[in-house]
């Protein structure tokens, strides 16, 4: 007895390929086989073409290792990676690592623009490797570690400073007015959630911070990502008015929002399309407003 709603035809069909009569299914299967052969032929052709260096992408990748001789002086290595439709910069790097040089080092994990580990400097701008299609780039594709941070090795940079800034804005929810009941949630209007929605998308990739000239010059500057984090809480109505004041005090410090010179490069590079400059500017106004209230 099958416990699943299994199609009887399915079973017979997958069990035995030989069955009597010219059914529609048979025809389709024949058709499928034919198409499969066709595809296989195409694939082989494609491979041959690739082998003939027809469709290779030229990568220029930054290399540096403080320990390994020959890599202590930063240099660029060239890799020629066979192109496949849909290939991203990350795919190309993985290919280069697995096929050509196992010591090529870069952070990556999710392959879907959510872990934030592969922010790189690609052809002169900060992007996630996994979110950048090779076909959108001019060759040679120049891949470097994020500017304005210390290089650990190859494409890996030290993120410690970025994390410190993120964590310095009290990036956690705090409120004094929790609902009474254990199982009762705090209320939040749809509009308010909408307001903070974009700011909650940050994946801590550090692209924005790397692109900001002010952050590059002033090490203590909180930077767009941390300010955006503060925005996410300051604007959350669930935290209440008193907390908001506290939040504003944090971002008002000397190296907080006032340092931003509205360069917009953070907003331009953010892979999550967070309107960072807008958030920073709004906080500046909020800060001024709340301070002028009783003047």
């Amino acid at each position, binding site marked *: 007895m099958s416990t*699943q709603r299994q199609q009887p035809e399915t079973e017979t069909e997958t069990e035995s390929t030989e069955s009597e009569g010219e059914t529609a299914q048979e025809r389709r299967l024949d058709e499928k086989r034919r198409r499969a052969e066709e595809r296989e032929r195409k694939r082989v052709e494609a491979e041959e073409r690739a082998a003939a260096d027809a469709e290779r992408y030229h990568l220029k990748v930054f290399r540096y290792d403080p320990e390994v001789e020959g890599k202590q002086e930063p240099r660029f290595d060239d890799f020629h990676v066979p192109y496949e439709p849909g290939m991203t910069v990350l795919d190309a790097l993985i290919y280069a690592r697995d096929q050509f*040089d196992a010591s090529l080092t870069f952070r990556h*994990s999710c392959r879907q623009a959510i872990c934030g580990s592969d922010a790189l400097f690609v052809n002169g701008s900060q992007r996630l490797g996994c979110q950048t299609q090779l076909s959108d780039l001019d060759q040679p594709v120049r891949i470097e570690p994020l500017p304005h941070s210390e290089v650990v090795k190859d494409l890996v940079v030290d993120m410690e400073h970025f994390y410190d800034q993120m964590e310095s804005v009290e990036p956690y929810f705090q409120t004094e007015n929790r609902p009474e009941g254990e199982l009762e949630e705090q209320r939040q209007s749809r509009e308010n959630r909408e307001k903070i929605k974009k700011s909650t998308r940050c994946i801590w990739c550090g692209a924005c911070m790397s692109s900001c000239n002010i952050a590059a010059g002033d090490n203590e500057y909180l930077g767009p990502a941390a300010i955006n984090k503060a925005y996410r809480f300051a604007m959350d109505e669930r*935290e209440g008015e008193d907390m908001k004041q506290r939040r504003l005090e944090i971002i008002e410090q000397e190296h907080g929002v006032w340092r931003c010179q509205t360069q917009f490069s953070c907003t331009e590079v953010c892979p999550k399309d967070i309107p960072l400059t807008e958030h920073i500017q709004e906080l500046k106004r909020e800060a001024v407003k709340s301070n002028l209230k009783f003047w």
Partner: protein
Amino acid sequence: MYEYDVIVVGAGGAGLRAAIAAQEAGADVAMVTKLHPVRSHTGAAEGGINAALREGDDWELHAYDTMKGSDYLGDAPAVEALTQESPEEVIQLEHWGMAFSREDDGTVSQRPFGGLSFPRTTYAGAETGHHLLHTLYEQVVKRGIEVFDEWYVLNLAVSDEDDPAERSCHGVVAYETATGNVEAFTARDGVVLATGGLGQVYDHTTNAVANTGDGVAMAYRAGVPAEDMEMIQFHPTTLPSTGVLISEGVRGEGGILYNDEGERFMFEHGYANNDGELASRDVVSRAELTEVNEGRGIEDEYVHLDMRHLGEERIVDRLENILHLAEDFEGVDGLEEPMPVKPGQHYAMGGIETDEYGQTCVDGLYAVGECACASVHGANRLGGNALPELIVFGKRAGLHAAGGETEAPRVTVGRSDDSEAGDVETPVELGEPWGSEGDAVADGGAAAETAEAVVERSLERERERVERLLERDDGTQHAEIRAAVQHTMTENVNVFREEAALKEALVDIHAARERYRDVYVADPSSTYNTDLIQTIETRNLLDIAEMITVGALARDEFRGAHWRKKHQERKDDEWLKHTMVSWSNGSPELWYKPVVLEGEKKTYEPKERSY
């Protein structure tokens, strides 16, 4: 040498929740994780978290759905713990500020999900996991819990008594990626493994590159049994070129699947006459592959998922992230065209055997999250049931490890009078018959009396292992071995399984093991040596692949996600039991333990699972 009360390995949702709970129970906690916490793959979860919050719904209904979804391979005590506690845990997340989607009255929204009898899936847009992960990490920051990020745990420090049930775990040995230092972390009270999924054994997967099943492999080699490893969930809607997931939320909101002939095949070909697209994942995945196999697939590879009729406003409101994913990773505009989808490896129902508090049979060793198998998902996980598992069992394990107050567990771990020896005919010898790296009883174990000595010995062994790998300057590279394993698993141990193919996979895995003996690390550096880490991960993948395949070969029935060509039915008389694989003297040993169907108030009688 570091020393803490509780060491949590892995900082995804499960690890973070465990650390918070342990700290709240008064323990001195440290987290050791190979990725920075916010990089964990929990962040990729899209659809939502199931919790019976509202009137008309209650935990019993949720438990019933979960047992049914599991195809009666879930253990009732664990399932009931999950469904009873998930509401309070979800509200706890809300109190920690998680940005849930809201109703007009400001309460948390819920949506329907596959296999659920009530719309009980709470969500935050189509990026629920991202919000959950960040909310939990924020709480860890708030509490000042110490996090050793980019520290790769190489192995557990477990004593080496003959009987795994008598062993105890005293800590872990980890490799600091940035510097190449190998250090020991002593845990006075407990080690909690929360290392997540193992999708990297397949090449088309929704899992991250870091999901290499390290925790399962480490616990396995320390003698802890791995449970129901053959139960691998294939998600029906992943993008064909990358494996990026298109959330079940799309179907939950009303998205429709079409084949090449424009038929709504879930209904028109009778795969699920009631629930259609919202039938359980295994049912939909098989339906899609059947369509493709019968020549009704698009480009003979995939089917279409269409959500255009939902209207731009609703899509942007609830599924905005999906539009970005389809655009960035497949170049398709979900508002204008249907999205191509096909099944991809998604989730491991099985894992390290634990009870309802995450305890394994080794004293002081816990496991939670996707790497564990408390057995709430049985043979098939329902969408939206993994995230509540992380927070419910994360909390329970953290609390237990820190010595907090808990009740006696009802699920037994390790071998008992109820367990039954298994037997399976394999074409090759399994495991590492040549004695992997000169191991003692438990791979990674150490013959020593005191806790310090156990930790010390483990540290020595791992230092040697790292040195040995780095010393060689010629041989096979791990990437080739990994590719070979992924290839054979995808070919032979996929959605549809048959005996000959499974055996072929075992032969291939054996060959891969053989090649692994010859593995070498090309990168000589001790700074950020990812080549070394991946080489070690690949070793773990070999064990994982083997466990999955052995389980799949043994279980000659069709239950949940596990489909066998020659065995087209669920055999409740014979198979209401878990497949267990234990590592013993360098090779896997198969045995079984019965499923616990007795719940708190009732027993879950196996019923036909139709949608």
